[in-house]
């Protein structure tokens, strides 16, 4: 007995020694940091659900069975860039994190993106919307998954303008994302022959939008563009209905709506809204299977948002790149370059590719919220109006102002 134990101990030591030997050549450890708004207005669209999505990506990738050791940690940036930057700095310096995922809130994402470049990590952003991440602020370490303000502008903005909504007024969230979304949508509206009559900037996380909505009403614009997100958008929509804005003939454009927002609004209020997304749980067998599993495991039993789906999908692709590299080189730029070489393909977003500026491209969809009578049950909310091809949904490469392209 004793002899056997001694033998196994010896074997164990030998094994661990050889493992250490290999480690220098091909390290098979990965640490993922899921940075999000864990408790504020964006917590339901990213937050704990994104950490769960990351967990599911690790499980589904089968990496652990292949000998990889993968850890996930999560952090709460509270929608404050300085807090986000501090967390990420600690993650890279102390916790040795390799890849940061999620990061809703464009203000935080832009700040974090620069730091991750400095630390040569990997930034797989699916939460933030600003198209600046793949334009003038692009880095060799960032990949922007899921959507950006260009997608939203060219999906919802163009569609509404072409269907007769040719005058616009914006209610904009007063930070990086709102500004980018208003800018991109203005461009899309004007390109389709529409006119922007004005706009008002509302502070982030406002409870009462009535003042802003009344200004929008007074502008007499046909479309009121809501360049905000999360609880800000749902509050605006609810209050617009209350003040008779929609009944008065003006139309609301929720430029960024997530399924959790539609759920919070209820179909009675949300019906008829048009919006652009790149993922919906009820698209095909792949999305349904993932979403059902996700819903069972998440505490509030929500369906996954496109942001959470993006965390899952981007990590799967990241793991594929690591496998192709035969180990984790702990060199962010190198991994990202490998990811860009490989075409993307996963059950949630289908086939796509990553452009040299870090933009993942795949089709986007213009949805309409169903009438309550059309809905077959909980979470049956969307009707597909149009599919926007990958080339139309994202900034064309020749228009991208990303410095990486000018080599």
């Amino acid at each position, binding site marked *: 007995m004793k002899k056997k134990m001694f033998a196994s101990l010896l074997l164990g030591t030998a094994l661990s020694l050889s493992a250490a030997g290999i480690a220098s050549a091909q390290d098979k450890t990965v640490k993922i940091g899921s940075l999000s708004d864990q*408790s*504020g*207005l964006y*917590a*339901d*669209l990213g*937050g704990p659900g994104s950490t769960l999505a990351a967990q599911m990506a690790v499980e589904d990738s089968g990496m652990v069975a292949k000998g990889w050791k993968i850890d996930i940690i999560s952090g709460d940036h509270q929608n404050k860039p300085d807090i986000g930057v501090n967390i990420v700095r600690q993650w890279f310096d102390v916790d040795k994190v390799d890849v940061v995922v999620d990061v809703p809130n464009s203000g935080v994402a832009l700040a974090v993106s620069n730091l991750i470049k400095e630390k040569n990590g990997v930034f797989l952003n699916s939460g933030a919307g600003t198209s600046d991440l793949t334009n003038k602020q692009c880095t060799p370490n960032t990949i922007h998954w899921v959507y950006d303000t260009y997608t939203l502008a060219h999906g919802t903005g163009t569609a509404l303008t072409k269907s007769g909504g040719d005058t616009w007024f914006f209610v904009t969230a*007063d930070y990086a994302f709102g500004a980018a979304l208003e800018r991109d949508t203005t461009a899309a509206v004007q390109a389709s022959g529409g006119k922007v009559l004005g706009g*008002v*900037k*509302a*502070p982030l*996380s*406002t*409870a*009462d939008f*009535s*003042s*802003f909505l*009344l*200004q929008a*009403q*007074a502008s007499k614009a046909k479309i009121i563009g809501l360049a905000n997100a*999360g*609880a800000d958008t*749902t*509050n605006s929509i*609810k*209050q617009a209905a*209350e*003040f*008779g804005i929609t009944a*008065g003939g003006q139309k609301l454009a929720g430029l960024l709506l997530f399924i*959790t*927002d539609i*759920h*919070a*609004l*209820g179909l*009675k*209020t949300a019906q008829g809204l048009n919006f652009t997304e790149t993922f919906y749980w009820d698209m095909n067998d792949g999305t349904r299977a993932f979403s059902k599993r996700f819903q069972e495991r998440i*505490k*509030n039993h*929500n369906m996954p948002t496109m942001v959470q789906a993006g965390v899952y999908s981007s990590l799967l692709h990241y793991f594929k790149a690591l496998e192709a590299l035969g180990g984790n080189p702990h060199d962010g730029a190198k991994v990202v370059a490998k990811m860009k070489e490989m075409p993307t393909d996963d059950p949630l977003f289908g086939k796509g590719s990553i452009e040299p500026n870090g933009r993942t491209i795949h089709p986007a969809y213009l949805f309409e919220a169903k009438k309550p009578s059309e809905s077959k049950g909980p979470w049956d909310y969307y009707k597909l109006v149009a599919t926007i091809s990958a080339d139309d949904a994202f900034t064309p490469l020749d228009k991208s102002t990303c410095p990486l392209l000018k080599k």
Partner: protein
Amino acid sequence: MQALYAQLLVGLINGSFYALLSLGLAVIFGMLNIINFAHGALYMMGAFCAYFLLNIWGIGYWWALIIAPIVVGIFGMVLERTMLKWLAGLDHLYGLLLTFGLALIIQGVFQNYFGSSGLPYAIPDELRGGTNLGFMFLPIYRGWVVVFSLIVCLATWYLIERTRLGAYLRAATENPTLVRAFGINVPRMITLTYGLGVGLAALAGVLSAPINQVRPLMGENIIIVVFAVVVIGGMGSIMGSIITGFALGVIEGLTKYFYPEASNTVVFVLMVLVLLVKPAGLTGRAA
């Protein structure tokens, strides 16, 4: 000019929430000397209470207006009896820290179960729709909020400043020992007062449920503004907090019209100015 009238009215609507909440805070501070940081969380509980009543037992808005303040008020009284009671006579700071901690716990528990997006609560059928006032479309529900909260505020003021019960209450805060000597149960009265203040917060919560989403964090932001209202009005002054509540709502509304970016900060700028000129607040008496 039309838009300006509309903004004034919208400001008045927000002001009614500020007034109701700051009134509860003023009552609690005035009578118990506790800076009740849990007020926002209790306001949120009022809204959730209305939501549960409707969705679990099918009890509508009108009953919720009565039941929710009572239920949350009782919860408040339990808090007072089990925790706050022990802090009587200690520095304000202890009460502030305790209630702040309670607020975080209550919000955390709700958030754990209900996330942060919020739950829908419909406007009662009787108050649906709106009227066109010429310069704006006034949703009937919002008009109701202004009128109702004004009545509640004035009734509370009357109760405390003009009735015998209110006189006992004020006397008990001045000199509890003496009032006890007259055979009045002072601890019970204090508990009931805390319950009243908490009930007012819950009432505001029910009122706001159809306007805002019923969200675990709905009290987090408003409470900071309301504290500024109380400070500007003068800590513990009942009428001061009512008037300041409505006035600040209007000022905030005007800011949203003239310079929207500053609408979140204007209340605090005013607070600083008032504190510089009149440290005890506009209607407060210097201690």
